[in-house]
């Protein structure tokens, strides 16, 4: 065992990187579910974002444009889900699953010819002065800006849901769409907007994997992160800060357990391998012992005539 081989600065820094795609996807899905829509297509939107972002970044040479394209790609794909569930009143669970399958297939199709290509490298936003602080500078202030964007997004979503009028309306739609409708709010329009936001966030999360974390394009490369994001939203009781805690716990323990393995710590590897799932669930379940519950109208279709 050689714990000194683990560099805590690098460990904590890579923890933040590992958590970011999960956090982005979870925050997006959280907003969607707070509006009363259950979109199981996160994985499909992520992988579509991953290839859209990758393709545009490679073709234009600009990773920033790639990220924009990824968000757009995810949002456009989510519109398909919105059309099915909000206008055609299709079952949300089935439509979401179909969206995942469709996204996986579509991304494989678009991705033909992008295998083995190196994307333009992403500029690291070394924040001047702050990044020179010993230890903390290396951990917190030497990331690409998407890491900060994800944290900022969490804060904004939290504030909007809790304090703003838009957030209140969104929550009203998610809790009781008939009442919201009776008050004159456009339930369908609000939900479509929320679905789009969720799609954009998932797309961004996918592109983070293909452009920054790995960076390359491989079919099916999100490998289930979308599903973990979905579970995270539930375990986080639909609360943004808890979703962030969960994402950092999950990402952090994933990285930590690999570090411990490489350092030869004498804990059976099976326990290390399952620890991210276990610890994240346990922590969030304990935290959700308060009176949190799912949005009341989650997964129910709405039509003005009903």
């Amino acid at each position: 065992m050689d714990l000194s081989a683990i560099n805590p600065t690098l460990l904590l820094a890579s923890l933040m990187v590992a958590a970011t795609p999960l956090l982005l996807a979870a925050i997006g899905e959280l907003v969607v579910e707070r509006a009363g829509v259950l979109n199981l297509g996160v994985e499909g939107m992520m992988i579509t974002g991953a290839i859209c972002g990758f393709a545009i970044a490679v073709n234009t040479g600009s990773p920033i444009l790639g990220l924009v394209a990824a968000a757009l790609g995810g949002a456009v794909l989510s519109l398909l889900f919105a059309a099915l569930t909000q206008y055609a009143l299709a079952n949300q669970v089935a439509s979401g699953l179909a969206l995942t399958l469709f996204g996986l297939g579509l991304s494989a199709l678009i991705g033909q010819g992008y295998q083995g290509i190196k994307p333009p490298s992403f500029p690291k936003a070394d924040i001047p002065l702050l990044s020179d602080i010993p230890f903390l500078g290396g951990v917190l202030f030497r990331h690409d800006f998407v890491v900060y964007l994800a944290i900022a997004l969490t804060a904004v979503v939290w504030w909007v849901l809790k304090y703003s009028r838009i957030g209140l309306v969104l929550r009203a739609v998610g809790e009781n769409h008939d009442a919201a409708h009776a008050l004159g709010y456009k339930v369908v329009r609000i939900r479509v907007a929320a679905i789009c936001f969720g799609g954009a966030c998932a797309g961004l999360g996918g592109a983070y994997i293909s452009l920054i974390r790995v960076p390359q394009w491989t079919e099916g490369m999100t490998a289930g992160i979308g599903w973990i994001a979905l579970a995270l939203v539930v375990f986080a009781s639909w609360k943004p800060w808890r979703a962030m805690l969960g994402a950092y716990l999950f990402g952090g323990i994933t990285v930590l357990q690999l570090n411990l393995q490489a350092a030869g710590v004498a804990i059976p590897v099976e326990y290390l391998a399952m620890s991210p799932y276990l610890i994240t669930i346990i922590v969030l379940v304990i935290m959700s012992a308060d009176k949190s519950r799912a949005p009341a109208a989650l997964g129910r279709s709405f039509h003005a005539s009903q």
Partner: protein
Amino acid sequence: MKLSKLLATAAVALGMATGAMAEDKTKVGFVFVGPIGDGGWTYEHNKGRLAVEQEFGDKVETVFVESVPEGPDAERVMTQMALEGADLIFTTSFGYMDPTINVAAKFPNVKFEHATGYKRADNVSTYSARFYEGRAIQGHIAGKMTKSNIVGYIGSYPIPEVIRGINSAFSHARKANPDVQFKIVWAYTWFDPAKEAEAAKVLIEQGADIILQHTDSTAPQAAAQEAGNVYTFGQASDMAEYGPKPRISSIIDDWAPYYIARTRAVMDGTWTSTDTWDGIGPGMVGIGEISSEVPADVKAEALALKDAIAKGEYHPFTGPLNKQDGSAWLAAGETADDGTLLGMNFYVEGIEGTIPQ
């Protein structure tokens, strides 16, 4: 109603048309553990499938399902293939072993071929490649090329096939460089690019300057490329797009000749349950080009090793070799028998850490 009726009729017509067409065709199914575009393991199996199509043209029809999880879902996929009239089904991952045996028992007329496993039945053959022969060459190059004397190894699951690879690579790296250490992490997945990249990064952060992988995607190559002064080897496929650096050589699985031969045997009616385990000699394992990053003398040594293995003059597990606990395994000049290799569940002397049980 009209539209759905029309669609239904069309579907029935289509079904009958394909049914009629499939009559004298041999149908070959493939079950893949990752996507065919993984650039590694599944990619090579799919190349084998395409070679079967090319060889037999109209006489054969191939179907495949990709990204099938190891476990009960695999059984469902195989059952579906058998019900749809497959004559021969290749199941291409270790974790499909029990599902293959279970489904084969229900379809005695369908032939099954399971890759890398050890359970057989009257209608189940097994086949695998002696990847450890390639690992010996990799280990030699790794031992010569490392400057930090730390080699990182990304394992998938602690099964004999993977452990054999680690032992073979390690014993040859030690022969080339007595100071070399292996750091091994288990990813517990065959295919998860983000996790594989993460594992590579962790190993690099902890001082490894050579990364060997036994997982299927090219993500560790990308991670090594980003890190800079790190070398890797292509796994299962050439991964030449990452050469000449970080990828300095590779182990290539060539399944095409085997798939063609087995399909032909089904067509001829000569198929029997067999156990195939071929290496560099018969061509099932190939060594990808050793890149210009490798000094000429190391390259020559590696190629000499390859030739010796191919001709059968040298066995990668030749004594004296001890087990990890120091107990004797092979005496000087003694070579390992296949039975021990197939069930290998111990590290050789010098490797640190324990195998997850």
